């Protein structure tokens, strides 16, 4: 079996190669069901990570993963803030609570971090989710309600560090 190619950091200059076209609006902001998912990427000192990139993968509103919908990419501003315009995904299969898959890349991250964002208005589904319900610190994966959508901070290190996954 061929061994996998190692990861290397995305470095400080990735906007040069990865931001030729905008990919942070999966749907038109005015379309039915559009929600804004925003949040900040924070380091171990609680400071914003302005040179991070967040990528999104999600099912559609009907709970289906499709090749042609569900991926997004956002840079971060000086406050470490990323932002997506998307729809809330449906439940996939019987048990999974609606969730977004997020990957964060940055200078200083030799490998990307992988996490999930769950929704605060899905308490019952969240309690039965086969991943969230088995995490001790699953609360770090539940977004807060915000005006017009949801807010979700990614804490790379320190108190309240976000749960990160290996696959």
């Amino acid at each position, binding site marked *: *079996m*061929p*061994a*996998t*190619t*190692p*990861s*290397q*950091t*995305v*470095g*400080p*200059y*990735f*906007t*040069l*190669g*990865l931001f*030729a*076209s905008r990919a942070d609006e999966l749907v038109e902001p005015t379309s039915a069901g559009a929600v804004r998912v925003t949040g900040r990427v924070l*380091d*171990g000192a609680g*400071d914003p990570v302005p*040179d991070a990139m967040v*990528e999104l*993968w999600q*099912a559609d509103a009907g709970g289906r*993963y*499709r*090749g*042609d919908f*569900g*991926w997004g990419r956002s840079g971060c501003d000086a406050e470490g803030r990323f932002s997506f315009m998307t729809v809330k995904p449906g439940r*996939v*299969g019987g048990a*999974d609570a609606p*969730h977004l*898959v997020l*990957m964060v890349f*940055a*200078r*200083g*991250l*030799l490998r990307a*971090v*992988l996490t*999930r964002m769950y929704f605060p208005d899905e308490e019952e589904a969240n309690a*039965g989710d*086969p*991943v969230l*319900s*088995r*995490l001790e610190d699953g609360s770090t994966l539940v977004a807060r309600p915000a005006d017009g959508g949801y807010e979700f901070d990614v804490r*790379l*290190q320190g108190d309240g*560090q*976000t749960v*990160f*996954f290996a*696959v």
Partner: protein
Amino acid sequence: MSRTIAEPFETVADGQDAGQPPYLYRDYRSTELRAPKRPLVILPHTLSELTGPAHGHESIVELDHDLTRQHDGEPLGERINVSGRVTDSAGRPVRSALIEIWQANAAGRYLHEVDQHPAPLDPNFSGAGRCLTDDNGRYSFVTVKPGAYPWRNHPNAWRPAHIHLSLFGRAFTNRLVTQMYFPGDPLFEFDPIFQSVRDPDARERLVCSFDYETTEPEWALGYRFDVVLGGPAETPMES
């Protein structure tokens, strides 16, 4: 109402896989405040981990793969062909995988506002390209060999010449961002980003090889860089 508390997931501590860099690697100073300190939680493979976006040809412009023909004139530097194959860990080709690259110019300068290295910009070189792999997982780019450049990680710190690559596999969680280096670079031993991969064999997988076959007479040197994507998608999912 009580609910069943299931067994917690298994976890993996940082740095267990010598074939991948750890998060915390103190010689690379920027990792200190950004490296997660808690173990990673090993996820079961649900559809979220087994599916991924399909990038279509409509997003690629004809000359996106040729970084030497994006301006009126030709960039300065050593023209090179960079090609290779993208496979999964079972050796099967990854088809229609989006590859995005970015790099410094031949003088070691990025067309980026953050880069303050006092080396010249090249009006004929942007340093960004993209392409999709073909049915055999093959890709190719035409570019110029990037220069080494200084950075501020430690006194007299220099990055070996490299091209950044971003790749999508079949599943989103197979996604890889890496850097391709050139054979025999004397800066390897001084570069903490390269050295963060502790296994020397794995480090070698970051280095392309000179390729006489794709070297074009009186035109360009050829380099070959094959990429193996990991991750859980051993069985391709229906879309």
